[in-house]
């Protein structure tokens, strides 16, 4: 089959690779009809996440048709259309039973769990198309994918619903939703969202649906700010305004009740702390670049809440622990428990309460995926979301 493979920093190529097959009883094989490039794929593209190998198949946002089902899966049937969550979860362990699917104790193969156990204290769950620290499972930017524990993850999509409407159930929609859920929004709340990439935009939409009184969005790309405004947010261009001062003024000096860091570790900006972080990352001294998060902590009101869907992997310098403690802030974070949120979000899509198609700026052939990566990274204003379609779906 054809698949997008990782070859090194800023080097991804579509290659011919062996077809996936059923390996374990609960596996399914999916023929992929739509897949997307995620902002977190750019961390791999930039090689700021360790544990990649040449030839790894990328992609963790995908959907398609079930073409084969292992004998241990009594739920899925050949021919069903499914969206596959990026988190691989067994459904049986303590964590899955608490619906903390992104903390699954079993999906990461035993020999790949040591690195994250050493780095984080406990081994992490597995994900598709990502680092070998999270399993090294082949991803979905391909014609086919092997889906382990396929009786737990994939959600069946009713006939007649376009791929574009439901594809983002795989990651970014539930990630934006959980970011807003983690804000514990109360009536009257003002929520500020750093980063109007896909997750930030869905977080804005979700915060409003969950009852936020106002949402203020922060970015610098005009098109992304325009999308945020269209969703109902007030917007701040951080190149024009002093963000903390602006937020304080716009909330009568109280500050936002909850703040969402939808930027993660490669935030932009030319402030001294960010420059120092940048030097350290470039020289493999490997601290995460956390400018956005520092700003979030200072901007949040006293006693407020912080939600971090943005991806971090390592250790931060100059983390404002004093502001966190003295102001009495609460922080919630984490990879998304996709399986938990998928059913209610599918219902919201089918009811017309959530539309995700506005985000898609480009639809490319899978063969042109490398170009998609380059442009998604370099032309963030234009390229808000790239959806890839394997060639055969056009026939």
């Amino acid at each position, binding site marked *: 089959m054809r698949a997008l493979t990782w070859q090194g920093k800023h080097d991804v190529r579509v290659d011919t690779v*062996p*077809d*996936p*097959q059923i*390996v*374990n*009883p*609960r596996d399914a094989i999916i023929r992929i009809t739509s897949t997307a490039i995620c902002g977190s794929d750019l961390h791999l593209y930039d090689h700021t996440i360790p544990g990649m190998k040449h030839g790894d198949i990328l992609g963790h946002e995908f959907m398609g048709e079930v073409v084969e089902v292992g004998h*241990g899966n009594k739920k899925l049937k050949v021919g069903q259309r499914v969206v596959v969550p990026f988190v*691989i979860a*067994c*459904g*049986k*362990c*303590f964590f899955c*039973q608490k619906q903390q699917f992104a903390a699954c*104790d*079993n*999906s*990461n*193969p*035993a*020999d*790949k*769990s*040591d690195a994250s156990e050493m780095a984080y204290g406990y*081994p992490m769950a*597995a994900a598709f198309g990502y680092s*070998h620290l999270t*399993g*090294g*499972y*082949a991803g979905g930017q391909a014609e086919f994918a*092997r889906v*382990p*524990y396929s009786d737990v993850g994939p959600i069946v999509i009713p006939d007649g619903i376009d791929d574009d409407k439901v594809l983002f159930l795989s990651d970014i929609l539930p990630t934006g939703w959980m970011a807003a859920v983690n804000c514990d929004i109360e009536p009257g709340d003002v929520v500020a969202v750093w980063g109007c990439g896909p997750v930030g935009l869905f977080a804005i939409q979700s915060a409003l649906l969950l009852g936020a009184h106002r949402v203020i969005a922060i970015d610098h790309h005009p098109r992304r700010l325009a999308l945020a405004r269209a969703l109902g947010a007030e917007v701040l261009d951080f190149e024009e305004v002093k963000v903390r001062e602006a937020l304080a003024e716009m909330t009568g000096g109280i500050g936002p009740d909850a703040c969402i860091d939808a930027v993660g570790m490669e935030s932009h900006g030319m402030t001294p702390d960010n420059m120092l972080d940048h030097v350290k990352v470039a020289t493999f001294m490997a601290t995460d670049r956390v400018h956005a998060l520092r700003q979030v902590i200072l901007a949040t009101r006293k006693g407020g809440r912080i939600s971090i869907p943005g991806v971090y992997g390592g250790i931060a310098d100059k983390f404002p622990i004093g502001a966190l403690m003295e102001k009495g802030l609460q922080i919630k974070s984490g990879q998304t428990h996709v399986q938990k949120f998928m059913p209610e979000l599918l219902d919201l899509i089918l009811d017309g309460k959530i539309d995700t198609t506005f985000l898609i700026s480009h639809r490319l052939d899978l063969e042109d995926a490398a170009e998609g990566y380059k442009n998604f990274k370099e032309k963030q204003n234009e390229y808000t979301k790239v959806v890839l379609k394997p060639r055969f779906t056009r026939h």
Partner: protein
Amino acid sequence: MAKRSETDIQSDAPPTALKDPNPAAAGLSIDADDSGDLIGRTVTINVPRQALYAFWRDFRNLPLFMENIESVQVYDERRSHWIVKGPADSTVEWDSVIVEDNPGESIAWSTTDKAEVPNSGRIEFRDTSNGRGTQVTVNIVYDPPVGKLGKAMAKLFGREPNIQARQDLRRFKQLMETGEIPTSAMNPSALNEE
């Protein structure tokens, strides 16, 4: 610092969590002076303890999740013969005897006197008091030999014995909880190459 004797220890943690693990404190020994390295690990498995005990008690199942064990031949209720992968396609073999067997609760085994690589292990299954399934603790004590056998042992227990043991125990948990051992292999031939 002087080694603390068992009676000095005031912490409630198991012996494997001690900074200076002591095989005797784990109820294991392979020689008179209680020497040898102790490794151990506890995991919670969301399966009743009787089922876990029954699966482990049939030592023929061990190679399913212990990746360096080639086979275990069971002679009778107590005695078994283990073939373990050694360096450069060699194997190391030994006879093992069950020295403790409490159905549903614990099993302990130890190599017989003739073994080139003396080792001993114990597994305990306890109900969790908070409804989270079964807490499974495995302790293994072994005498790290030198020379060629040292290399065999390094292979058996991995470069870091603790790492090999915890990977094996993870696979046991995965198999018991999910019915399979997860792998990122794309197809069966990739799985066999691993």
